[in-house]
C-alpha cells in the first residue's frame, strides 16, 4: 500500500498509509479499536477502493483491475473473518468444500480428500457433519481457517484471529499460522490488537493510529520504541496520546447537573 487515503462520509480513516507485506513473511497490523484495521483488509481484498494512493497485490494495482481480474486475485487469497462468516445453511464439510466447488472442476473424490485433510489440520475432521450453529466460537473460527486455506492460497489474511479463543484454541491457531507460513511459504497478514500473541509469530509489525502508520518494525523493535503512542499501546496504558475516553463534557459537572435535573 502506498500513500493510501480513505474516508467514510468525509470522516478520514486513512491519511497516507504506506506499508508492505513481504512475500513468505508474517506481517502484523496492530492498532487500537476503530483505527481501520478491518478496513485495511477490505482494501487489500478490493471490497472497497482507496480514495487516493495505491493498493497493489501480487504486483497489480487493484484500482486498475476489472471484476474478473479482481476475482482472479481473490482466488489466490484466503481470509479468516473475525466471526468465521460460515455459511449457515451448509455443514462444516460443505463450508470448507464451498470455494473448491465454486472455483474449480475438481472431482468429488478429490474434494473430499482435500477437505478432510484441511479439517484434520484444524482438528475438526470429526465435526465434518455438524452445522455451524452447533459449533462453539473457537471451533467456528477453526472451520473458517480450514476454508480459508482449502484453495492453498498464496496470501492469507486474518481479521482478529485470537479474539475470544480459549488457551488451547489460541495455541493451535498460533501454531497453524506459523506452520503455514514456514512449511507452505504463505504470506500472512494478521490484523489484531493482541500484542503478546503477535509478538511470538510476526516477522514485521505496523502500528496504526489516527489514520497513519505510527511505527513499523519487528515486535521487538516496537517494544523498544521511544514513541509515546507505541509505548501506550504495547503496555496497554490508559494514559497517553491515544484517548481511551470518547470526548464528553466534564464528568463531575455532568453528574451534578443530572442530580439537579
Amino acid at each position: 500500500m502506498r500513500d493510501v487515503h480513505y474516508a467514510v462520509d468525509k470522516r478520514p480513516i486513512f491519511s497516507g498509509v504506506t506499508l508492505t507485506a513481504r512475500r513468505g513473511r508474517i506481517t502484523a497490523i496492530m492498532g487500537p479499536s476503530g483505527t481501520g484495521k478491518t478496513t485495511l483488509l477490505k482494501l487489500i481484498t478490493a471490497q472497497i477502493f482507496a480514495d487516493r494512493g495505491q493498493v497493489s497485490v501480487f504486483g497489480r494495482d487493484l484500482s486498475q483491475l476489472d471484476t474478473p481480474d479482481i476475482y482472479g486475485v481473490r482466488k489466490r487469497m484466503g481470509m479468516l473473518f473475525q466471526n468465521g462468516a460460515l455459511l449457515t445453511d451448509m455443514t462444516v464439510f460443505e463450508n470448507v468444500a464451498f470455494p473448491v466447488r465454486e472455483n474449480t472442476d475438481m472431482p468429488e473424490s478429490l474434494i473430499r480428500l482435500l477437505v478432510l485433510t484441511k479439517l484434520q489440520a484444524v482438528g475438526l475432521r470429526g465435526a465434518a457433519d455438524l452445522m455451524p450453529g452447533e459449533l462453539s466460537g473457537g471451533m467456528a473460527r477453526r472451520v473458517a481457517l480450514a476454508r480459508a486455506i482449502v484453495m492453498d492460497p498464496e496470501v492469507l489474511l486474518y481479521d482478529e484471529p485470537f479474539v475470544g479463543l480459549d488457551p488451547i484454541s489460541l495455541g493451535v491457531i498460533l501454531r497453524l499460522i506459523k506452520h503455514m507460513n514456514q512449511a507452505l511459504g504463505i504470506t500472512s497478514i494478521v490484523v489484531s490488537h493482541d500484542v503478546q500473541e503477535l509478538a511470538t509469530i510476526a516477522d514485521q509489525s505496523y502500528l496504526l493510529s489516527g489514520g497513519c502508520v505510527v511505527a513499523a518494525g519487528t515486535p521487538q523493535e516496537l517494544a523498544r520504541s521511544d514513541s509515546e503512542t507505541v509505548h501506550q499501546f504495547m503496555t496497554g496504558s490508559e494514559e497517553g496520546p491515544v484517548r481511551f475516553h470518547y470526548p464528553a463534557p466534564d464528568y463531575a459537572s455532568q453528574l451534578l447537573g443530572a442530580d439537579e435535573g
Partner: protein
Amino acid sequence: MSNAARHGTILEGLRKVGVTGIFFVRLLFACVSALARPRLIIAQIYNAGGRSLIIIMLSGLFTGMVIGLLGQDVLRRFGAETALGTLAALGLLKELGPVLTSLLFAGRAGTALTSEIGLMRATDQLTAMEVMAVNPMSYVAAPRFLGGFIAMPLLAAVFSVIGLYGAQLVGVQLLGIDRGVYWSQMQSSVGIHDVTEGIVKSLVFGAVVSLIAVTEGYHAEPTAEGVGLATTRTVVASSVLTLLLDYMLTAVFL
C-alpha cells in the same frame, strides 16, 4: 412538512427507485449465470413455493367459500344463482387468485427472503463469498429471485383451483345450486384471455415481490434493527405495489 423536508423525502424516494433499478439490471445479468445452477433455483422454488403451499391452499379454500356464500346471496336477488360458477371463476382467476396470493406470498416468502439475505449480510456471509471469488449476486440473490418468480404463478394457480372447489362446496353442497350448472356456466363464460390475465398478473406480481424482497435484504443495514426494518419495508412496498399494479393491469386487459 417544510419544503426542505418534502424535497428530502422526494429525493430519498427517487434514490430508492434508482437503487432498485440498478440492482434489477445487475440481477438480470446474474440470473444468466444462476441458470447454470438449477439445483439452487429448485431449492428456492421449494423454499418460496413449497413452504407457502399450506397457507395458500387454506386461504384459497376460505376465499372460495366466501365467494360461494356471498355470491349466492347477491345473485339470488337478481334470480341469477346459476351464474355462481362464472362469478367464482372470473373473480378468482382474474383478480383474487393473483392479488391475494401475491399479498400472502409477500408476507410469507418475501419476508423470509429479506430476513435471510439481510442476516447473511449482517454475519459477513455475503462478504465471505465475495472474498472467495464467488459472486453473491449469482449465488444468493439471483436463485432466490428466480425461485420466487417461478413459484408465484404456481401458487396463484393452486389458490384459484382450491378457491373454485371452495365456492362449489358452499354453493353446491350447502346452498343447493346444481353441480352441472355450476361447472357448465364456468366453462361457457370463461375464455382463454381471462386465464391469460391471471397468469400475466401473477408473473408480474411474482417478479415485483421477489425483486423487492431480494433488494431489501441485500441492502439491509447489517444490524438486528436494520434487518427488521427491511423486512417491514418488503411487506409494505410489495402490498402497495401489488394493488397499484393490479389496477393498472386490469385497465390494460379491459
